[in-house]
């Protein structure tokens, strides 16, 4: 997707394109005299964004959403990694568990979100649980695939040097699975924000999803746009952090980008 290299020409090109997009946006809105109730102009959005930031309102709601996102991600990821580790190693577990996991995955999480709110209330707990369920599957699937895809020749090499199953896991299967696991985590972190917002839409007292609904009800479309930008920024931020961690951890892999699935 993106290379992290900081190329001056690249940067100029990107900056000019950004300005170009904003300009098109601005002139289109002005030219057709579109009401800010339908599609606000960039200047208004930026003003709303500024106001939201300095008033401290965004800070509070971003904090709530970020907390739900990260907690849900952590819980979903840990369960997925443990379960994926077990299923990846013990074949019979896959036969027993996988039908249920797939059935659960097939249920749209948006459809079961109201249930979680009914069970766990309007606070952060229900959002964390919804997020965890959304994050769970891609990480689980990638972990299993990663653990199973160690090349046969590496397994044979370890066998020839008398490796035990645990040594095989620790020295070959697990490191080999890491690029896959990080691809899963990267998908998971972006899905986590969706999970938190979906949860807040169903019923919440705070958070950016809650704030979007508020703005929408009061016909403050400019405000909605400003919050969408905040959400995007959070998404990009979390994705970037994940990429950096992945790059540090799986320094040997050049193909982690190609392993993105789903």
């Amino acid at each position, binding site marked *: 997707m993106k290379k992290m290299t900081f190329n001056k020409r690249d940067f100029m090109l990107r900056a000019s394109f950004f300005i170009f997009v904003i300009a098109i946006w601005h002139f289109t809105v002005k030219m057709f005299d579109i009401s800010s109730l339908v599609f606000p102009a960039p200047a208004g959005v930026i003003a709303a964004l500024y106001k939201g930031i300095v008033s401290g309102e965004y800070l509070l709601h971003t904090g709530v959403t970020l907390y739900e996102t990260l907690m849900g991600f952590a819980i979903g990821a840990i369960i997925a990694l443990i379960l994926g580790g077990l299923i990846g190693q013990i074949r019979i577990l896959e036969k027993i568990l996988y039908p249920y996991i797939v059935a659960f995955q097939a249920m749209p999480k948006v459809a079961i979100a109201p249930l979680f709110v009914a069970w766990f209330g309007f606070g952060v707990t229900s959002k964390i649980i919804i997020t965890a369920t959304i994050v769970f599957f891609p990480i689980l699937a990638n972990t299993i695939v990663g653990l199973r895809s160690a090349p046969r020749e590496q397994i044979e*090499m370890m066998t020839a040097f008398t490796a035990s199953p645990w040594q095989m896991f620790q020295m070959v299967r697990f490191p080999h699975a890491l690029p896959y696991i990080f691809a899963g985590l990267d998908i998971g972190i972006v899905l986590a924000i969706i999970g938190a917002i979906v949860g807040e839409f169903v019923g919440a007292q705070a958070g950016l999803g809650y704030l979007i609904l508020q703005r929408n009800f009061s016909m403050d479309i400019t405000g909605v746009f400003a919050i969408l930008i905040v959400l995007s920024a959070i998404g990009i931020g979390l994705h970037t952090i994940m990429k950096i961690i992945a790059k540090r951890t799986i320094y040997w892999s050049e193909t982690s980008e190609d392993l993105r699935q789903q």
Partner: protein
Amino acid sequence: MSAFTTNGIDTKVKNASAFCFQDINKNYQSRDGLNVSALSNINFEVFKKEFVTVVGPSGCGKSTLLKILAGIVNASSGRIEINGMPQKGPSSEIGVVFQNPVLLPWRTILNNVLIPAEIQKRDIKESRKKAYELLDMVGLKGFETKYPKELSGGMQQRVGIARALINDPSILLMDEPFGALDAMTRELMNMELLRLKKRIGATIMLVTHSIPEAIFLGDRVIIMSPRPGCVEEIMDIDLPYEKELSIINSEHFGVYDRHIRNAFNSKAGLD
């Protein structure tokens, strides 16, 4: 000829047995459910400090034979003795060099060499010292902290050799170790392997499909034929112990070469 008696095998007084194959058979089910025989009645013995090469066309089961000895593949029937003891699975007495060097990309060269030592839970300080020595011996001094992808194919194979030797195995198995290298590097590696052989004192079995390589390296050449894989002939090679590459052009070498080629051709004619 002093080197001959101290390091090499004496052709008259054989050393003790390093390993032997007794009635080894290997069958497997093909995709259409047929029972295919990959190896049939393999019987031969290799003596301590001997260098045997196994040569044969692809599909003759020579790699399978090596993997059975290494304990990676199970034989369908028959038995193997290693140093007089029946073989049960992989053994720390054996070091294996694979065709594709099979280095782990996340480990440095030094840590790749240390894999068998870690598996065997040997003293890590001693092993590191040994790894440095081995890397020096295979000509990779200074590459210890590099990663496999930074090395050429020939260099990676040297790492594979150092790794196979880290636990001082009494038997070194080499599965077409130079098959993926270009002809020049290959000849160079052959020379170096002979030099290495004198220093390590292990029994070596090397599998190859190159007839000149088999003759050049082996004290004996095991000639195998395919369908089913079986030992066609075992040929003693009587070439000077201190070999030079130029020996390949000698009359004597040519006789061996033609003999093996004829063995293959007559077999192929029967197909």
